[in-house]
Each structure stands twice: as C-alpha cells, then as structure tokens.
C-alpha cells in the first residue's frame, strides 16, 4: 500500500515501444489481419478500423479481448484507433495495461493464450467469452485480472483471485491490489458503467447530481456511449 510508483500521470509509454514486434507476434498478427478481411461484414465494425491502424497486432488482439471481456466498446478503450482520422489518445491507458500485464502476469503462457483466442477473428465477443470460460484456471483468472484492470485501474494477482474464489473464507480483509498508476484510477470504467465518475475525478458541472445522468436535457446529458451497438 505504501509502494508508490514514480511515474507521473501524463507519462504515457512512447508509441514506438509498443510497436516493437517479435517474430512470433508478427506471425500471429498476419493471421489475424487475413482473417479479419474474410469475416469483416460479420465482425464488429471497430475491428476493421483497428486492423487498419497499423498498430501492434498483439495490441489489436488485446483490445478485442478487452472489448469482449469488459463489455465496453473499443471506441472507449482506445478512442484514437476509431474514426476516419487516426488521432492521438493523450491518456493511452491501453499501453499502460498491456505493458503491465506483460510485466506482472507470473507466466506468459496464459496471456499468449488469451491473445490467441481474441486474435481468431472468427469469434464474436460471445465466443471469446465462452472460450475463456472454457480455458484452464491460469488463463481464466488472468482474464478476470484484466477486466479488473480496466474496471478499477488496479491489479489483482490471478493467483489471489483463484485462491479467494475457491476459498472465500480465507479472506480477512481486502484482496491485495495495486493501483497501477494515478491515471489508471481515473480511467477506471466501472464508474462510467454505474453512470458516475471516479471519486475525486470529475469534469462535471455544479448541480449535476440533482439530475439523472442520462437526462439528455441536462448539462451533462448524452455521455459518450460506452457500449458498441453489437455489444449492448
């Protein structure tokens, strides 16, 4: 809890680092790109644009995986990858998470397996979820850690999730967790899912709390839709 990372909130990873691809990821990426072309009309529209965006194929798989597991559209997870003109996401939380998982998942195999599942673009979000649920425990609990990362900005060790899932009576306080960095907390998705904002981080206006967050006539009405049409 006292363990603090020294990184500043705006200190995103340089994009070039993410672009580094090993031979293995190149192969996986090629497979993914080819497959996308074949199933494009059936797939989520965001996929095509991500696939067009020249980024790391592992990152594409990661975003598809994240979209399926979190139920939140790639449009929200990686806003700069979607739209007619590729833009810049100054927050770029996806790179932070991707790097974090690679560094902190105790074993690399489960993460590779998850990326492979999502890289098979014949799969819909529903199929990805089914495959993840049918996987071995290491893969399944890592998938849960990844969802928690997106939702809460905090890392929960897959081994802890398994332990307390299997034996909840062993838990005698909060499950240990680590806020990845300040911006991870402020980008947590669960707040938006609940129609709220992270506590201590809001850009809403005085008095908004006396109105329904979905009131289109309110000053804060019509928030960015979180869920892509095919997901919701």
């Amino acid at each position, binding site marked *: 809890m006292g*363990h603090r*990372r020294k990184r500043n909130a705006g200190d995103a990873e340089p994009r070039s680092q993410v672009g580094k691809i090993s031979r293995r990821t190149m192969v996986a990426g090629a497979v993914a790109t080819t497959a996308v072309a074949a199933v494009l009309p059936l797939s989520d529209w965001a996929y095509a644009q991500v696939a067009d965006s020249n980024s790391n194929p592992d990152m594409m798989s990661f975003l598809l995986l994240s979209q399926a597991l979190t*139920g939140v559209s790639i449009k929200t997870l990686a806003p700069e990858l979607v739209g007619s003109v590729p833009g810049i996401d100054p927050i770029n939380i996806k790179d932070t998470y991707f790097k974090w998982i690679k560094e902190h998942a105790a074993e690399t195999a489960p993460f590779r397996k998850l990326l492979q599942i999502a890289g098979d673009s014949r799969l819909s979000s529903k199929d990805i979820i089914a495959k993840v649920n049918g996987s071995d425990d290491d893969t399944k609990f890592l998938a849960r850690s990844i969802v928690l990362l997106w939702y809460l900005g905090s890392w929960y060790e897959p081994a802890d*999730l398994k332990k*307390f899932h299997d034996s909840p009576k062993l838990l005698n306080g909060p499950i240990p967790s680590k806020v990845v960095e300040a911006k991870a*907390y402020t980008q947590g998705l669960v707040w938006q899912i*609940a129609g*709220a904002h992270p506590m201590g981080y809001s850009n809403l*206006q005085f008095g908004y*709390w006396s109105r329904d967050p979905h009131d289109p006539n309110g000053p804060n009405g019509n928030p960015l839709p979180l869920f892509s049409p095919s997901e919701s």
Partner: protein
Amino acid sequence: MAENSTACDVAIVGSGFAGSFIANELSKKGVKVVILEAGPRVKPNFNDYMKSFYEASSKVPESPYPPAVFDSKGNVIDPATVAVGRPSSLTLGASSWKDPKKAYLDQTGKRPFKSTYERLAGGTSHWMGLTPRLVPNDFRMKTTYGQGQSSFPFPDWPIDYETIRPYYEKAEAELGVAADVDEQRFCSISFSANYAYPMPRIPQSLFDQRVGQALAHLTDDETKFLGMGAPVTQLRVRSLPSARNSQPYRNRRACAGNTNCIPICPIQAKYDPTITLNEAMNGGARLITNAVASEILLQNDRVSGINYITYDPKSGAKTGTGLLKATVYVIAANGIETPRLLLMSKRQKPNGVANSSDMVGRHLMDHPQYLTWGLLPQPVFPYRGPLVTSAIGDLCDGPFRSQRAAFRISLGNEGWNSVVGGNAKFGSDPNVTTLDFVNGMNFSGLNSKAVSPAALFGADLTGALGDLISRQFRIAFPIEQSPNRDNRVTLSSVSDGLGLPRPQIAYDISDYTQRGFVAAVRMRKLIFKKLGATDFTARADNDPAGLDVMIDGRPEPLTYGGAGHVMGTYRMGADPKTSVVDSWQRSHDHPNLYLVGSGTFPTVGTANPTLTLSALALRTVEDIVLKLPSQKG
C-alpha cells in the same frame, strides 16, 4: 534553550480551524502571532496529495496525507518510530486496534475509539464540510431534560444559543456556508434579523429527493417510538448547511461534485483551514512547521513559555529544540493532542497544566455512527455530487432526550463506498461489488445466486454492475454520545519517534447512547420500508466495534463508525472544580492560557462540530484582545 527562543504577543499551538481562525483575526488587529505546527507546511498546490490519493489502494480519509501508514513492503510502520504520528482507520481492525506497535493510539478500553485526525498545517482539511448549528436545547440539556435525574450525565453549557449565535454568523461568513435560512428553522434554531447565509443552498441529490418523497406521509403509529412528544406524520429532508461553494466565493470555484469531500476536494470548492491560515500568514502571522510542542512551562500560575522539538520531515530524526515565549498562549491541537500536551507538562504540576479539576482528558466523545445500507428498486445514481447533501435533522431534539440519545439522519451520495461488506472490511465499493461479479464471490451480498455466485464477462457484467451500483444507498445515524468521565485520554507508556508519550485511550458507549442506537434501528426499518429498499446492513465477523442491542426482545447485531469528531476532553463550564476552561475557553487555572477546539464542548448534540468550534474561536479572539493589554502589564 535561549539560543532558539522566539517571542511574540500570542503563541498558538496547532494550525487547524481554531488555530488558523484565531491567528488570522489577531493578525488583522496587528497582534504579533507565532503558530507552532507539528506537521508539514501548507503545500503550494494539491497535486502531490491528489496523486497519493489516486494511487492509494485504500482510499481512507488519511490516504492523501503524510505520514505513510505502511512501508514499501506493505508492513505497518511502528508508530514508535514516527516523529509525528496519528491514528489511522487502517489500524482499527480486530488484530490492530489494541496493538500499539501498529496503531498510534494506545487503546485500552472496552471498545475502539474510531475517529482519526491529521497533524499537518491546516489540520482538518479532510473534513466533510458540513456546518449545521447546534440547536438551542443542546446548550441546556440538564435544565431541559435532566430535572429530577441525579445521574443525568449531561451538564448545561455556560453559554446559550443566543450568546453564540452572532459568532455562528461570523464563522459562516469565513467558512463560506451555503444554506437557506428558512429551510434551517427547525428545533428552535433562530437567526438574527435579515440574516442570509453567504451562498444559496446546495441542490439535493436524486437520493435525497427520493427519501423526501418516501417520508412525506407517515402515521403517528409508525413514529411514536421516537418519543417526540407530538405526532410525527411527515419528515422533511433538508439540504445541509455546507462550507461548499454553490457559487464562486472568495476566489474559490463552485463545487463540481467530485464526490471526494473526504479525503480531499481536488478544486478547493470546499473550505479548508489552509485558506485562513494563508491569509493569517499574509497578514504577518508566523508559522513554524515540523515543530512539536512538548511542554508548557509555568511561572507561578501563568504560562511562561512552550518548549518544542524540531525534526527532519524526511528522516523523522530530531534536529533541535526551541522555546516560544508570548504574553498569551492558545492550545489548538485537537481533542486528543491538546490534553496530551497538557498532561505531558508536569514539571510544575504533577497532574498536568490546567488540570486542577482533574477533568483534562476526560469525557472523550465522538458521534458514533450507526451505518446502514441498502438497495433501492430504482436507480438514484450514487457516487455523484458532494458525499452528503441532505439530512433529516428534525428528530435531534425532543422529550425523549431525558431517556435516550438523539440522532440525525445523514443521507449518503457515495453508495456503498464506505460500508460494503460490513464497514468496508473487504475494501470499498465499487471495488468489492465489481470483484464479486468478475470473480464469482459474494462479499457485497449482491451476488447471491442460488447455486454459486455468478462470474460474469461482457454485457452480462456491465448490465449487472450498472443496475446494482446505481441503486445503492447509505444512511448514517450520527448519535449523541453522553459524556462519561472514564472515556479518557491519558499518557501511554509507549512513545512516538521523538520520545514523547503517545495518547492512551479508554472508550466505551454508555447505555444511554446505546438506547439511541435502538431508536435508530427502528428508524432504519421504517425508512427502508417506505423506500421499498432491500436491507444489506451487516456486521463483519470479529468487528471490534460490534454492539448488540435488544430490539423487541431480540438481539440486533450492530456496529458503529467514527465521525471524525474528537470532543469533550477539556470541557468548559462555570465551575473550576468540574471544568477546565470558562465560556471564553480560558483556563480556570492559568489566566493567560486558552484551550480551544471541540475539546471544550461539555456536551456534543448531534451537529458536526466544526462550525461551533470555529464560532467559539472567534468569540475567544474578543477575550484575548480585550485582556491583552492587562496581560502584558
């Protein structure tokens, strides 16, 4: 000593609300003021504090502020090694609250004292910002409700509501209070002619509005348990007076509803004492930080100086000592640190300074809170707006007070953030509920599928969380605690990092106060029924604050939380035999010593104490100024 000696007109120990108010008012009048502050200086901006808060795994009230409670390996830092320690809500668990190697306060009592405080310039910046007034009968409990009861524990105050009223109005201007005069006329609260609060009231949240509708029609049968002496057939939800800007005020922005009043408002739309403290320093007051007052020196019956210890804020190592000399001395170090300093000062008085009555440290009080939480049939979208915008205050005074404790009903806008799973034992929400549905667990109580808890992904997950979290609510019942001479601050045999004895605390909750909990439980049942809400109020196993009251012959397992209100430990009164200070907060024993803050409250009512202690501080300024020329003589 003499090599590091400072002289001034008025020396103040502590730079929180009371200390800053007094320093600022005196500086405006040209009085030379020096303030000793145990903790670090005022930061030029909040960025570091916000970063600490965002990165904290447990976003407890102390999370943005130094010192750290855990080391880099996640182990509790032994408070014996910390120069300026303070209690932490992270060390109030079953295994830590009585362990002085983990908890700063050496707690030896039957139950835990659950409130915490900060030690840094500006003091109580992590407050909720609620500023209701005490009601007139709070000042005359013995006269109004204690006639014929020899053991009635509540004394009268030496002043009445009418005496403090003009100071309430001055304090409301300094704090910048948003409220509506007509809405605040209840329980005989009155205002001077043509008075208006500095700003319009804070709008009510969706939950406030829902509760107001639900309680608009009640029957006498449903409410007669309250003992109000007259039928209660409706209850009004009133916006709470708040030191929270509803429009720009004194160069600070209007509230943007960050839902983070505790621990820190990121835009300073909520008043905090650094504002007045900075103004005092601009006016000439001098602030000495990282300087711990260690001893009050006496010459005959007058205070002649204050010894203090300086330390390195990084290493915590002692760096030197100093002596502060003044004509008048003000101790404004809160309800635990002030008696600690008085009791430590025993060179000339073995029982401590200002303690001929033996009342210093006694009558420690809080507003123990009965915390309840539930789920509504329809969403009210919590986790939005100030943490609290409204309350039901009308039940805080009535004939029942001869028999049981009063309470107010505080409506939360932060869902189950601080209560989920039983006093947030397994962490706070939305984390706990999210973990439950991602990982197939049920610590929130919400994931109770018949076979086993659901573990969801995708749209099922967003659907479940969006639906459930938006229907959460929390209601707290802050309860008036009766003064008990054995609820007490003394000196512990364990020390802090500077070698000074830490506070030892004995604390319990009286039968009178527990009867207030019983009424609050009945009220919870009525409100939840009217809301059509499902009750999730629960007590975690081994909760050291567990309390079992009997309701209709059956035990009801309860728990209580601290309100952060540290009160009563150097009470005011007219009789020097039974009180420590007079109504001006001047020591009965030492004519040039003032003890200020909520420690002087002889009884605490149910109002958050900050406005009252601020008003009393402003009243004290008048006495200091009046007597300063003769004190110098």
